[in-house]
């Protein structure tokens, strides 16, 4: 049993590391905070919908190291992002850029809100105008007058 366990644990060596490792962490806390912030907005390209900050894939580690390298070299957040987009394509960005091909993505929620708001406004206005009762027809007025005179 002991031998089996040892075998099992040997297997672990090939299991990739999980998320940010201690040796990656920058000594400057401000820079590290920026690195974490950037990492959370970058996709791990080989994973299913994970940011490189959460992923344990080797590629994610590689990108995390690049991000820190660029930051240490004095790049701004935008420059780091741009560097990675140039290298890996816009697929790496978890928040897509605002551009012609993403106009419907960014535009859909405001559009729904606008259309819904207008539809509600129109419906309310129509209801209010239809809520004003039509004046009585002469026949109705006569019936009412009869009732009034009968009551008194």
């Amino acid at each position, binding site marked *: *049993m002991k031998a*089996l*366990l040892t075998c*099992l*644990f040997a*297997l*672990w060596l090939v*299991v990739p*590391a*999980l*998320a*940010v*490792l*201690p040796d990656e*962490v920058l000594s400057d806390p401000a820079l590290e905070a920026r690195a974490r912030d950037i990492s*959370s*907005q970058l*996709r791990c390209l080989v994973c*299913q*919908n*994970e*940011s490189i900050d*959460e992923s344990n894939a080797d590629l994610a580690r590689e990108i995390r190291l690049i991000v820190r390298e660029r930051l240490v070299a004095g790049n701004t957040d935008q420059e780091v992002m741009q560097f990675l987009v140039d290298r890996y*394509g*816009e*697929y*790496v*960005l*978890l*928040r*897509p850029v605002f551009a012609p*091909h*993403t106009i*419907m*993505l*960014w535009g*859909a*929620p405001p559009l*729904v*809100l606008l259309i*819904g*708001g207008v539809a*509600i406004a129109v419906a*309310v206005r129509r*209801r*209010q105008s239809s*809520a004003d009762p039509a004046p009585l027809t002469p026949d109705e007025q006569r019936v009412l007058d009869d009732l009034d005179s009968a009551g008194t």
Partner: protein
Amino acid sequence: MAIELGHFALILAFAIATASAMLGLWAWRQGDRVGLMLRQGALLQFLLVAAAFAALIQAFVVSDFSLAIAWQHSHSAQPLLFKITSVWGNHEGSMVLWILILVGMGAAVAMFGSNLPRDLLALVLGAQSLLVAAFTGFTLFTSNPFARLSPVPFEGQELNPILQDVGLAVHPPLLYAGYVGFSVCFSFAIAALISGRIDAAWARWVRPWTLVSWVFLTLGIAMGSYWAYYELGWGGWWFWDPVENASFMPWLAATALLHSALVMEKRNALKIWTIFLAIITFSLSLLGTFMVRSGVLTSVHTFASDPTRGLVILALLAAFIGGAFALFAFRASALRAGGLFAPISREGALILNNLFLATATAAVLTGTLYPILLEALTGRTISVGAPFFTLTFGAIMAPLLIVLPFGPFLAWKRGDLIAVTQRLAGAAGATIFVTILVFALSGASVSLAPVGLLLGFWVGFGAIAELIDKAGFGRMSLGLSLRRLAGLPRTAFSTALAHFGVGVSVIGIVAATAWQAELVTTMQVGESREIGGYTVTLDDVSERQGENFGAETARFTVTTPGGGLRMLAPERRLYPASQTPTTEAAIETYGLSQLYLQLGESNPDGSHVIRAWFKPYVTLIWLGAVLMAGAGVLSLTDRRLRIGAPRPAARTAPAE
């Protein structure tokens, strides 16, 4: 033998459902005569599918690997609980669970629906049976769970170890109960559209089904979120993953439906919109169950792995969703608009709620589907992840949360905004005071945290203010107010409780995000680290053999700021049958906050990678959801709205 009997039972259920669907949808005008047959048919469908499901469970429990799905997804060394949950830890088996709940809902309608008008009952059961027939057919013809293997394999492959958790026993059944429960609302909507008759009584009949499903879905999502939190090992609780979004969209739509049905029930207005929402909610539930499964959501490419199944799913979705909307477009004009109201009124507030919830649903839907559509149409690949969703969703939710407390204060038909603002002044003062206090004491640096906290406290205090106001505290003697409070209808409490729950969740989300402390480090045995005021000491790391896994266990002593001692033992496991490693985080709850420890890999020098998080008030996130679900249950128990209660109203309801 039992497996063949189960298979036969499912085929029989399919046949009965097909017959019931035809009977109900064609002969509904003879409701009196077909009603009894349909009700018996619904009960029979339930018994037969339950038998089929029992056959599957039996095969998994005795590890009968001649059953193909048992061989693929189970292993004889798995603990009994996980043998059972393996039944729905795969596509075919989970379809049977899904159908079981679907026929269960149908049977419940048949049992409790005796007060429904006969023709409406016939239509509802007919529509429900059509769903059963379609999805049972899909299961039988494209994903048969009863397929056998020959020769029989000696041992099974195992259930994905990440799924070997109590979470799998609770999460899918809850979620499915939520998804599938909306099928009843859908069937009621179809029935209303076909018969062209809809009134406040309709909203009353649909109400319990919406509420029950909503409660299940709320709990299912919260449970799933907590499961991901403790199992995936990095302490995240919501990832805006397509699969999560798929469950969140029906929840948003259903929340809108709950509110619009309220207007319909009380004021006989918003009828067409409510029908529309009922259809949308179930359509999104179908999308949630099946888009994920067809593989379309995760990637366009896995879709090709099983083209027949994926195409059948898409065809079914198109048929039901498209059919329902076609019916809606064709018949909605036959439904007449109801009660009148001013823009500033309870109705107006509920419409605003619906506008924002509908926009939020649309935002999540576009964010989830846009990358797939864009790639299919132009070949460009983009990612839409958490940063997009938090931005758009947050921007839509903020105004909703601001206006939320006003809603319950406004009167039906015509409200007085100025008077309501005055009555909410206390809540506003408390909100600002507490938020400033919190920041004075803690000093968080996250830029949007104050806004988030303000919103959370505002919604929470607003809910309390509503109860105080309704009971008349401060305006009359204390005793009288208390008596008034006790005399308030349960629905008043459930409204306040649900809204309070929203506030609690918001506060939890903001606090856990803004004040989280994180530590990524290497530790030797005997070393200590400090996080969030807690001292964590690594006592030892040892190996142990579990039932079907090997584990490396780290033992920590945690010293709390108050001096208390706790033992925590996170693990890394390896499941040899599938060669899958997992991490088992150790979580200790202190008050409402949690300390989260995770054991990473070991280094050549014998040290271990340790990740630790201190997550202040993180439990509020799920506690808020539980409060919301509790509010739903409370509302269900309101005597006035119990399923049998509206009988007299139902009889006299005018047929429009």
